């Protein structure tokens, strides 16, 4: 295991994550039976995905280890804004990355923000 740079715990988690992918993507056709679901749960489901992404992204853009940043001189702010603007312009993931990174890299590497 050491020669591979891993351990059983990590491999177990990776196997678990694989099961999560299958279960999440096949959730409503795992079983042959129909899945009755209360209406509020069905409506709630549509808010969970964007909430999950936001919960991961916002701390990565607006905080340093969980503390709100206290300066506007942070490359991540401008990169995320440029990325979001590019996305709403063309609805394209690649363009979002290219626009965001072409703002991020000069500010981060050039100005040290």
């Amino acid at each position, binding site marked *: 295991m050491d020669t591979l*740079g891993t351990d059983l715990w990590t491999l177990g988690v990776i196997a*678990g994550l694989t099961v999560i992918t*299958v279960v999440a993507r096949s959730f409503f*056709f*795992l079983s042959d039976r129909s899945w009755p679901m209360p209406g509020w749960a069905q409506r709630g*489901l549509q808010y*969970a995905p*964007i909430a999950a992404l936001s919960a991961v992204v916002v701390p990565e853009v607006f905080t340093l280890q969980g503390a709100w940043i206290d300066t506007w001189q942070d490359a991540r702010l401008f990169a995320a804004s440029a990325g979001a603007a590019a996305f709403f312009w063309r609805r394209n993931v690649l363009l979002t990355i290219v626009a965001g990174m072409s703002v991020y890299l000069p500010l981060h590497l050039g100005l040290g923000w």
Partner: protein
Amino acid sequence: MRPIFCVDVRCSRASDSRRFEVFFHPALHRHPAFFQGLRTLAPQAPGIAAWGLMTGVAMVKAGMSPFEAVAMTLLVFAGSAQLAATPLMVAGAPAWVILATAFCVNLRFVVFSLHLREYLMHLPRWRRLWHGYLCGDISYVLFVRRYPHPGRSADERLEQEAWLAGNYGLNWLSWIGASLLGVMLANFIPTAWGLGFAGILCLLAIGCSLASSRLRVLAAMTSGVVAVLAYGLPLKLNIVVAIAMAVLVSLSAERLRSARAFRRG
């Protein structure tokens, strides 16, 4: 082995029904719809590859060994969940928190599966699971755009299945190839460049693509603020709390709005 193609007229072809069938099933990849599906994905392939490349780089940059990153790429096959799980794994968070986080990030697929159910339920379970596992965001969106209604005859259903397989087949190739390249190149790219931020930009793009209503934007804002305010919680529980709060707030706002509309008559 149980014949897999029994709902279909091609059941008479015993050689097909006995094979170990997944998405490379001959009845699918020989179908003309397979290449139509593949061609529909082609314009998206560079974007998927860039995203995959950065996911490969980001996993290694976050502290995973190349072996682990390759295993993640080949098995987990879920970019946003991989990116969300990687820092938790490196930090040694409890396994259930990592799996719960990944499931929450994957919840959009739960919604997609409710939609895809009517297209796939005629298939045996193992075949459904293979299709589900391999059908990522973009394939789902393109598929339901191409086929707004499930097939009514066996031929229509086979065509749809073939189209879907061609579409996610190319998606799989672009994603996996680029991710493995990213894992290889990661050590030649200094951490100080901060290229891992590209992974966050990918998540941002998917988030923006989901921001289709004001209540969803409200959910995103609630979740983001709560995730920061609750950052001090152990086990990265801030993410779970943030999602729960966002769903609660959005459902309440929804109810408030419909109550107001009802009063207005």
